[in-house]
């Protein structure tokens, strides 16, 4: 039993898990507001990270300026995606909408490879010190930043939904579209807004991952890991998504520990979340906090 390694891995798990939580949160945001299962969530991370990388490396923009530009770009990008690709699909069967997002993920993934090449690129260093000591553990600065940014985004999201007018409009739309419309909420704007916010939040997560691991098409795996997280937490619960993300992140690293110490199977790290997904679907298909679907006509 290697306690030092276990703790190190669990810290990793917590950091990665909060990131999963953030991405899952933005996934659930789209699902709740617009009933779209977004298979292109990971590609939003990818686009955001590449844009920020291009700004910093190709155009020599400093980080404090590149980040806001990326966020604004992704905000507009999210609105555009919703308007061009998903607005025509309103009212179509759910599988058509799913297939549009799958196709979208292919297009974005391939376009990024086309524009920026297939090789992973390191992100320019942002912090001067490599690591800090917290409670006797050596933790990389980027991990601390990642955790702080993730928690900040979660707090911002919580404030947005609890207190702001747009957030309330979104919650009303998610609750009942017709009632929301009759109260004077523009459902069209809410749909576009939810994609914009989701894209922006994902892009920030994407940049954080890129700072830690460099930019590559592997980033889009975060979009796939969203599914175990959200199924665990309940497909339509934002709090559940965050908790599910953290649990999946911890579980991944715990699986890696078990794998490395005892089983020696290889990449249990990567597939463990999917086993969890299947098990959850078997025993508790609506997740920890999801609403049980009561079918109505």
């Amino acid at each position: 039993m290697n306690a030092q390694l276990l703790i190190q891995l669990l810290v990793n798990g917590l950091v990665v898990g909060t990131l999963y939580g953030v991405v899952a949160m933005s996934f659930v945001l789209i699902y709740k507001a617009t009933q779209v299962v977004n298979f292109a969530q990971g590609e939003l991370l990818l686009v955001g990270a590449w844009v920020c990388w291009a700004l910093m490396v190709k155009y020599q923009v400093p980080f404090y300026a590149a980040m806001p530009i990326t966020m604004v770009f992704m905000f507009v990008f999210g609105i555009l995606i919703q308007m061009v690709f998903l607005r025509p699909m309103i009212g179509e069967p759910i599988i058509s909408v799913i297939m549009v997002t799958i196709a979208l993920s292919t297009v974005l993934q391939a376009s990024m490879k086309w524009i920026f090449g297939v090789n992973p690129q390191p992100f320019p260093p942002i912090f001067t010190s490599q690591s800090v000591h917290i409670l006797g553990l050596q933790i990389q600065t980027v991990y601390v930043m990642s955790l702080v940014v993730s928690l900040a985004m979660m707090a911002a999201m919580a404030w947005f939904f609890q207190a702001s007018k747009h957030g309330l409009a979104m919650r009303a739309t998610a609750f009942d579209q017709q009632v929301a419309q009759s109260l004077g909420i523009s459902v069209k704007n809410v749909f576009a807004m939810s994609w914009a916010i989701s894209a922006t939040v994902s892009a920030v997560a994407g940049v954080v991952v890129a700072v830690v691991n460099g930019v590559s098409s592997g980033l889009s795996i975060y979009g796939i890991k969203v599914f175990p997280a959200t199924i665990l937490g309940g497909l339509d619960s934002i709090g559940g998504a965050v908790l599910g993300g953290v649990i999946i992140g911890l579980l991944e690293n715990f699986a890696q520990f078990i794998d490395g110490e005892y089983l020696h199977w290889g990449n249990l790290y990567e597939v463990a979340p999917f086993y969890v997904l299947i098990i959850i679907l078997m025993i508790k298909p609506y997740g920890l906090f999801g609403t049980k679907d009561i079918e109505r006509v």
Partner: protein
Amino acid sequence: MANSMIPAGDFRTSYAADTTIFPTVTSRNVAIASVVLICFAPYLFSEYWLSLLIQIGIYGIAALGLNVLVGFTGQISIGHAAFFLFGAFSSAYLSTKIGVPAFFAIPLSGVVTALVGLVFGLPAARLKGLYLAIATLAAQYILLDFFARAEWFSGGSVPAMAEPFSIFGYVFQGDRQYFYVVLAYVVTCYLLVTNMMRSRDGRALVAVRDHYLSAEIMGINLTKYRTLSFGVAAFFAGVGGALYAHYQLVVSYEGFGIERSILFLAMIIIGGTGSIMGTLMGTAFVVLLPEVMEWVSSVLAGGAIDQALGLKTNITFLREIAIGVIIIVFLVFEPDGLAHRWHQIKAYWKLYPFSH
């Protein structure tokens, strides 16, 4: 859709007449004639074109299964490539390690694949379509990981070998002979599905797709039919995969990631969800698209467009982009696919010059 082409005065007076495979005598004759004609393909086409035809046949069978699931039942699978590959590996395993003749190994591996599919599909098939999508996504990753790991089954990092197809001691060698094997399977599978769709079970699937609540009220067991449809999809994926294994004679898990599953979805969307012949059209479209793009890029080579896009080096990405864009365009502008367009062309000529 198909019924719109029935000539005036041709009334159906019994249920049997209403559920015939071919609506008219001509359509039956055309179908038989085209199968007979395609039998001469090995003598007419070069090896290269023949290999493309074989690919269309193999992928067409797998896509047919997916169309039963997506087009007729309204569920969705994003793990079709993994099931296809499972069929390939299990047929290779059955034929080399256990010694089952390839003739029996192919349908048998279809059954095995269906059983494995049900392990993943069973929890999700009771729920709505999007849960099956997520479960099959998990299956895609779990199965590919399994293939990379299970050396006894798939050879792990070493590709698995498969025996060549043989029947009563006669070994089919080369593309020219294997073509007939694939053709026989394609005809059998397409007839099977056409028959299934006009039976009680097939109509139940369509009812589940159109309105699951009404279907349930009419006494259709939703869980049973959703599971059945998923099993059928996995079965045909397995059969297609097994044919692929005995065609290539070597099976490796590379190139069967999620992109391949998306290609299978592209085939049925382009061809037409819920159209049996459309599946074949869509498969042909997707298989021939790279060839067309290759040809276009060779025509444009050296020109301004070539220099701007860097066609030679970027053709793989451009192909992926094209597939994605084509899926979206079809979903938005032509949700019924090529099959619908084909019917419109036929109707145009039939009604010419009085199109209304």
